[in-house]
Structure formats: structure tokens, C-alpha cells
């Protein structure tokens, strides 16, 4: 099994997330599997509500109340997190694996200074002194492009703009030099001009530090430029996954085609190209979902799509979940 190879940092096998709602159990993530190798960037794309955030929170064991996860295996550096206790998870979180969230305005604690919040994880995991941790914080604030870092340490979150706060969040995630960084739409809440800067910063840091990254984004132009692999999610499932060039060059799943075709230049997307708008709505994820969940919106849908479609694999590593062997 490839997940046992030690160059695989994250191996997700059969992950599901259920959320208890008033209308019944919502299957936010349905039996997904994927791998991320060391130093690799995997981009997770898909319309809003398809389960990207729940996937990343499930990996970090940060699901909100009411949401539960199940997995055959959730291996981080070969260790199955789905069987690890809270203590072990806490030892890995913030040290070997880190996360950046969508909302920089609320992700920092308003009651403590930037410096206080930056040094926390480093002091905890590295048993470092306050002085060492502050030195490391200043170094990283410089790395994420924050000028006069020393003074920033004493400031409170409300004194910083959204873009600066997200830079602080990035520095905070990098404090212990993690092996895996999960970034859930880190720029969606920011001004358009700042979005590109932050994404470029993340890509540069990922390459420079050799961190594996799971990046959730709506920006297909960014995906085309920085992803090694892409996983396309729809209604809680991964419907297509593969190396970036293959996936953009030859999208096999009708949904992936829809996303890419909606962008001005077919096949090759331009920076800033957003996810396409496909007519129709995502089906309800409450209760059982039978057959292909995309069939209400799919131009190729036929009788056979009412049964669960098979997963096809191409030699280049591309895989897709559809009755079509090769979308016309």
C-alpha cells in the first residue's frame, strides 16, 4: 500500500463526516480517500457546501459540536490519527500539522497580543523560553512580509487589518515548522488585491520550507499554478482527482469539465479564474444519497447513473467517479 511509504505525509482512507441536524443526519463528507506526499501541494476545489471545510477539520480533529467523523484510516506520517487519543492529537497539532482558517478577523483571540499568541505553540511544543520563542516569532513575521515585526508583537488583533491578521495566522501556523499545512480558503475573506499576495506568499513558503500543503481555494488560476495534485469535491465526495496538468488538460468527470469550461480560456485557466457556475443546485445531503449525486445537473446523465457510479483510474494517476470511461 502506498500510504505506508514514508514519503506520504497524509493518507486519508474512507473518511466520512456526519452532522446531526433537525432534519436528520447530514452526510457532509462521504467516504473520501486521498493522499498527500511530503512537500506536495494538494488543492481541494468544489462549490461551496460540498464538504471541503468539514474534510479539513476532520483531519485536524477540530470538527464543531454535532459533527462526527469516521475513517478506515487517517494516517499522518504513518500513524493512524483515527485511533489516537486527545493527548497524542494535541502533541501533533500546532507542531507537525497546522491549519489556517478562512476568517482572519475572528481567528485571533481579541484579548491577547499577537506576540503572546505567536509564541504559545512554540513554547509548548519546543519547550522553548519566552525569549527564544519571540525571536522565532519575529523571524517568521519577517518571512510573511510584516514590517517592524518587533513592534507588532505588542499589538492586539483589532489593531491589524484583515490581510495582516492572515499573515500573522500564517506565521503562527509555521512556528514549529510543520510537515503539513492545511489552508481552508485563506483569502476568501480578504480584498481582491490582497488575495493574490497572500496566495503567492503561501506558495513561496510551501516551496521554500518543503511543507506539504492542502489548500482549499476557489481560484482555479491559483490551482493551475501551484497545485501538484487537485481533488474535486462534489456533494461530499471526491468526484475526480489527479495531477494538475492531467486534470486541467483532460478533465474526465462532467462536473470537473463544467468547472473548467466556465472559465474564459478552455483547458488553461488564467490567474484569478473563478470556479465556473454550473446550472442547477447541489442535492440535499440529509439522509441517503443514491446513485451519482451530480445527475440532476449532468448533461450526460442516463438511466445507469441512478446506481452508484464506479471509480476509474488512468495510468497517470487520474481517477474519477462516473459511469463514463472517458467523458466525450
Amino acid at each position, binding site marked *: 500500500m502506498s500510504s505506508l511509504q514514508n514519503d506520504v505525509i497524509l493518507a486519508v482512507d474512507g473518511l466520512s463526516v456526519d452532522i446531526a441536524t433537525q432534519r436528520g443526519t447530514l452526510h457532509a463528507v462521504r467516504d473520501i480517500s486521498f493522499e498527500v506526499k511530503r512537500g506536495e501541494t494538494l488543492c481541494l476545489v468544489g462549490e461551496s457546501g460540498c464538504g471541503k471545510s468539514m474534510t479539513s477539520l476532520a483531519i485536524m480533529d*477540530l470538527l464543531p459540536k454535532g459533527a462526527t467523523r469516521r475513517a478506515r484510516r487517517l494516517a499522518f506520517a504513518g500513524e493512524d490519527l483515527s485511533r489516537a487519543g*486527545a493527548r497524542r492529537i494535541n502533541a501533533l*497539532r500546532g507542531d507537525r500539522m*497546522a491549519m489556517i482558517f478562512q476568517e482572519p478577523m475572528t*481567528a485571533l483571540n481579541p484579548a491577547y497580543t499577537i506576540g503572546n499568541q505567536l509564541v504559545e505553540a512554540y513554547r509548548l511544543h519546543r519547550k522553548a523560553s519566552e525569549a527564544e520563542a519571540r525571536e522565532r516569532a519575529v523571524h517568521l513575521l519577517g518571512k510573511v512580509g510584516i514590517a517592524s515585526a518587533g513592534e507588532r508583537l505588542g499589538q492586539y488583533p483589532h489593531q491589524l487589518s484583515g490581510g495582516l491578521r492572515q499573515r500573522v495566522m500564517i506565521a*503562527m501556523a509555521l512556528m514549529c515548522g510543520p510537515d503539513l499545512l492545511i489552508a481552508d480558503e485563506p483569502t476568501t475573506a480578504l480584498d481582491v488585491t490582497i488575495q493574490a499576495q497572500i496566495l503567492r506568499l503561501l506558495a513561496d513558503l510551501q516551496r521554500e520550507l518543503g511543507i506539504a500543503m492542502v489548500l482549499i481555494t476557489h481560484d482555479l488560476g491559483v490551482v493551475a499554478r501551484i497545485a501538484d495534485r487537485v481533488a474535486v469535491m462534489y456533494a461530499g465526495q471526491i468526484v475526480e482527482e489527479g495531477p494538475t496538468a492531467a486534470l486541467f488538460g483532460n478533465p474526465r468527470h462532467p462536473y470537473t469539465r463544467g468547472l473548467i469550461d466556465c472559465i474564459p480560456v478552455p483547458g488553461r485557466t488564467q490567474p484569478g479564474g473563478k470556479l465556473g457556475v454550473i446550472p442547477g443546485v447541489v442535492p440535499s445531503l440529509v439522509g441517503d444519497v443514491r446513485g451519482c449525486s451530480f445527475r440532476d445537473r449532468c448533461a450526460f446523465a442516463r438511466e445507469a447513473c441512478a446506481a452508484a457510479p464506479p471509480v476509474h483510474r488512468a495510468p497517470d494517476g487520474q481517477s474519477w467517479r462516473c459511469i463514463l470511461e472517458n467523458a466525450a
Partner: protein
Amino acid sequence: MIGYVLKRLGLALLVALAVSAIAFFLLRLSGDAATAIAGEGARQEDIELIRKTYGLDRPLVVQYVEWLWQTLRGDFGTSLYFKTPVSALVLDKLPTTIVLGLTSLGFALLVSIPLGVLAAVYANSWIDRLALAIAVVGQALPNFFFALILVMFFSITLRWLPVSGSDSWAHFVMPTIALGYYVAPAFMRLVRAGMIEVLSADYIRTARAKGLPARSVIFKHALRNALVPVVALTAVQLGFLLGGSVVVETIFALDGLGYLAYQSITYKDFPVMQVVVLLLSVLYVLLTLLADVANAWLDPRIRVA
């Protein structure tokens, strides 16, 4: 920060002044000072003579200004009942009330913060319901009734604590519990509600993502934010404490300002009443100020305002 404190201090003094004026007029309207001074069975001519001598026939406004002027100069008058200077009397009783206020506030916080945190962390569990039950009982029981239960249990059944007086720390135990338990439920509910809200905040998820253990997520990241409204409530509750101390001190004959207030009302001792009311309002206003300053310290966003 200093400008903020000075601004609040000025406001505090104005409030205390207003309260003293209202109290002065209300007390004067509630009974005739000359009759009280003259004492039981005094003749009408004597009362009139006293009214003239003490200047009680002048307009109330003039009397208030004169009283205020004297008070500000440090002349608090003489008690009609105790026949001693009011200042000495008040200075003698003040420490007892301050100690009782602080111990009961401390007791209330000591009980309500851990209970509120537990109730929030284990919301809707049996722990939460137990904490709620404790709070409901505390709020439903009248102050004096709870005090009597304490006396029956600790003094009469167990014989551990003295029933009344104020000579040793043991005399403070039951008044502290009675008064503290009276204000604890409000604190507990606020801590619980605040913690439940804060625990679902994004920055708590950030703290957990760092691998911080539950105790520092709860006590460092959540509690401090949940305590901001608690500090504001402290000011309000201190007012209740001062009011409640009149009842509790009287029940336990704890010789503080509250007991003095009760005695001065019983004996129609106007000079004492006025000073006690003024002092209680100044205390209340100062405590409110203290709470505001603490609030500004806890929540850096308020500091700039």
C-alpha cells in the same frame, strides 16, 4: 488609559453628589428632624425651639448646601442617639462592612466561576443541571431565610460558629456565605452563558489547532473573554451586596455600616443616616469605577474608546 480613568472618576463624583442630594431630601421628607432631636414626649414649644436653633426651619435647599459644605470640610455632625461624632462612628464601622463586602464577593466569585465554567464545558449534562439547581435555590431563598438556615445548622446543630457579633473571623463566616450565595447565581449564569458563547468562537478553534491542552484553551483563551461581562456585573452586584449587607449585618448583629444604617433608621438618627447613605453611594460609585477600569484592562478594545 489615565485620561479614561480621570474622565470616569469625574463622572463618579457627580453621581455620588446627586445621590447624596436625593437622599438628603428623601430623608427629610420621611420624618421631622426636630421631633426626633427633641425625643419622646417633648413639648411643642421645645420642638419649635430646636427647629429654630438647628436652622431646620430654613428652606431644604439651604440646609442641604450647608450640610454638604460642612461634610466636605470633614464635619459630619454628631449622632443624636450615640452622642458621639458621626465621623468616629462611621470610621469605626466601615472596616467591618468593607471586609464583609470583599469576603462575600470573593466567596461568590469562588463559587460561581468554577461552577459556571463547568456548566458551560459540560453544557446540558448532569453537571450543568446540578449547577443550575444550586443557582436557582440561591436566587429563590430570601436572604434572611438562608441566614436563619445557616444559623440553625452551623451554630445550633453543629455549634461550630457564633450566632452573632463581630469580634473574630468566625463571626464573618456565615454572613459571608449568606451574602455571597445571594449574588453568586447571577455571576454563575453570566459565566456559563459567556463561556458557551466564547467556546464556539473561531479563536478557540485556533487555540485547539495549536495543540494547547484543554485547560489552557478553557482558562486562558475562553475564560478571559467570558469574564468581560462578569466584571461589569460585579459593579451592579456590589450594589446588591451593599444593600444586602444591611439585612445580613442586622441579622448577625455584625457591627458594620449596614447595621449602623439599620440602627440610625430605628432611632431616627438623621445625621448618621445621611452620612451612611452618602458613604454607601460613594463606595458604590468607586467600585463601579474600579470595575470599569478592570474591564478596560481585560478587553483591549475598550481602552481606545
